[in-house]
């Protein structure tokens, strides 16, 4: 039997080797992309903002489709999250887009708990993915990823500063999701106010330690554009699905008596920048950040919360499994103990009940005996009475017969007496 001897040579420091000709693995990116195209992509956006800030309209404008039929009903208490999934296709790319809307955000009188349902929703998606990942028989590569990749936070165009609700919500969300703040309905603010507003917002975010999503600047191809865009955050956007004729073209715009705001005009609003950054340049990076940063953080916290550790005091391998085993045994032990307790209690209760029932039985027996005796007494009495009555009856009968006899005798005698009288008369 051949024993083994495993030798690793230069495993870590792989040597760089020049190629003497065309090998062909430069087609690897193409192979990877083709596989992804066949598979389809998915992207999930969460829109957080107060009612009436134009969230649904902006989504329609961004993706050039009419998503929802009628506007959402705003009559539920608390913040509801409504998610809708759409299948979009452009050239050969299929995208499964999920848009989650917060309905009723900021509508309540007491807004302390508004952020909770949002955080809960995001956590639920992470949890679902974690469960799938931890399954024994899993299908990760065909799993429909519902984790939120980007959160568009809609800021009301007040022109002054961020509302405290905004700050609190963004602070709670910044470690869970990529936040991209945008100023909604920005056609309500003038140019000069807008610059002041943006500066105010960014300084408030920084001073409160809110980590918003920064477009990545490590790849040279997009570093430049991303860093310029980083300076334009938050984007001031205007959304519109109606088209207006400008010159000889139909453009998406909002028409006012004093002028028309063109959505895709860079000097009117930052919509184009938002679309560029969100979709055309950084969609993949958003997905990656969600998976490698936010999801990993959630996973780590969740597993640590459940009591798992990576290294035991003596650094045993596969300790997750063993910790789980230990925990499971502990839990089974607990379960068994509790079962025992339950059983004991059950037995005891049964005993008690049995004793009670026995008592009751005894009582019933006694009662029965008593009644029986009573009944017997009564019966005896009645019999006695009956007997005496019978005697009376007998006596009476005797008397009656005697009386009758006497009577018949008397009659005879009377008859004879009458005869006698008759005879006497005759005589």
């Amino acid at each position, binding site marked *: 039997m051949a024993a083994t001897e495993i030798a690793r*040579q230069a495993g870590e420091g792989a040597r760089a080797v020049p190629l003497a000709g065309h090998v062909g693995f430069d*087609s690897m990116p193409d192979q990877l992309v083709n596989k992804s195209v066949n598979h389809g992509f998915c992207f999930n956006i969460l829109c957080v903002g107060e009612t009436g800030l134009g969230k649904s309209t902006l989504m329609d404008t961004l993706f050039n489709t009419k998503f929802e039929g009628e506007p959402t009903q705003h009559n539920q208490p608390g913040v509801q999250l409504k998610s809708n999934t759409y299948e979009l296709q*452009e050239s050969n790319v299929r995208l499964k887009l999920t848009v989650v809307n917060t309905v009723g955000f900021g509508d309540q009188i007491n807004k302390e708990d508004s952020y909770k349902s949002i955080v809960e929703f995001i956590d639920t998606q992470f949890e679902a993915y974690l469960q799938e990942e931890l399954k*024994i028989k899993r299908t990760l590569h065909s799993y429909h990823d519902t984790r939120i990749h980007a959160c568009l936070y809609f800021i009301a165009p007040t022109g002054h500063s961020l509302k405290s609700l905004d700050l609190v919500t963004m602070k709670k969300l910044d470690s869970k999701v990529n936040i991209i703040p945008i100023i909604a309905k920005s056609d309500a603010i003038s140019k000069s106010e807008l610059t002041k507003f943006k500066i105010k917002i960014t300084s408030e975010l920084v001073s409160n330690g809110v980590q918003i999503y920064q477009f990545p600047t490590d790849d040279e191809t997009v570093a430049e554009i991303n860093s310029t865009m980083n300076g334009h955050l938050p984007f001031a956007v205007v959304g519109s699905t109606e088209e207006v004729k400008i010159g000889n073209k139909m453009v998406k715009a909002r028409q006012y008596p004093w002028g028309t705001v063109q959505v895709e005009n860079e000097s009117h609003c930052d919509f184009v920048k938002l679309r*560029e950054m969100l*979709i055309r340049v950084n969609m993949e990076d958003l997905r990656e950040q969600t998976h490698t940063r936010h999801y990993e953080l959630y996973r780590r916290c969740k597993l640590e919360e459940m009591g798992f550790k990576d290294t035991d005091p003596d650094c045993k391998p596969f300790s997750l499994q063993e910790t*789980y085993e230990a925990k499971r045994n502990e839990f089974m032990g607990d379960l068994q103990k509790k079962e025992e307790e339950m059983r004991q209690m059950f037995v005891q209760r049964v005993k008690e009940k049995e004793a009670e029932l026995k008592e009751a039985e005894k009582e019933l027996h006694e009662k029965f005996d008593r009644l029986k005796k009573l009944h017997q007494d009564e019966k005896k009495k009645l019999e006695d009475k009956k007997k005496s009555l019978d005697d009376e009856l007998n006596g009476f009968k005797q008397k009656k017969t005697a009386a009758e006899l006497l009577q018949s005798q008397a009659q005879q005698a009377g008859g004879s007496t009458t005869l006698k009288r008759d005879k006497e008369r005759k005589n």
Partner: protein
Amino acid sequence: MSDSKVTAHLDGIISDFEGSEVNPSHSNMSAPPHPQPPAKGASHGTGDFSYVGIDAILEQMRRKAMKQGFELNIMIVGQSGLGKSTLMNTLFKSKVSRKSVVSNPEERIPKTIEIKSISHDIEEKGVRMKLTVIDTPGFGDHINNENCWQPIMKFINDQYEQYLQEEINIDRKKRIPDSRVHCCMYFIPPTGHCLRPLDVEFMSRLSKVVNIVPVIAKADTLTLEERDFFKQTIREGLRANGIDVYPQKEFDEDADDRMINDKIREMIPFAVVGSDQEYQVNGKRLLGRKTKWGTIEVENIAHCEFAYLRDLLIRTHMQNIKDITSSIHYEVYRVRRLNETNAQPNGQPPNTLVNPQQANGAAAQHQVLTHEM
């Protein structure tokens, strides 16, 4: 014409020749089409309403892939003297084999099967790849070759284990280093008859844990008829023993895939010849083997099937090979591993590794029961 012009002209012909070698005979195995990058720039502002830009994600993915680089781990198994190292060098057009790395290559057969893995960083047109070649000297070289597949199986499973360990860590790396064996090339000596018991035994065991690509080594000793007959016998032997080599029938995704893979299945195992020396043939410098009766050109499909092998392995199916390893073989290993530590006393393994809801549910049920009493 001046000398330099001639050489330039010749170089042009060579590159065309090398490229066109492959195309006419099997168009289905040509390099995958490069997806068109979307038109970027200022044009989106002016007239293109319906263009959202979703397909820009392809470009983003490509950028990410180029930045990250790729990994490929190939294992080569076969008796000594079958030209394994030379074939590796030919495939990757550089000195990637163990013999080229070790300064004093020992030519003696090791007493025990060793597993030697060497990594290389290669780059082509901006695409970086970490290629790991895992050699198995000593396989099949002894008198008694019983269980010679065991160390290899153990190595493959160890790689899966390593990956699994990292994956279930709480604090895990962003990119788990992938040392799993993606592809195992099994070298069949060109006897011309049929599969030997050692071949059958090895392949039937290992085809369950790794993608096996069988090749007929040193195929220049077989004539074309002998080669076809040998291939047929091998295919029958594989079928008879239930050995599923790459591309496996059950993993075909759709009709197109099946069509392409059926063509490949008709051709395996590839009869290859390896060489890392160039000779002058018809005025061109080509990789080949020079003998007294002629020069065998390695990349000429009329001579041997090296080009097909290279295309399958590198140019068209590399991603697919890696996918099957990670989503099927690795998952099978994972299920097995997690089940053997998870099985409850009554022998029924639960479906989840950790299910807090279940735990909570049991506790909740328990609470309800005690309240009822």
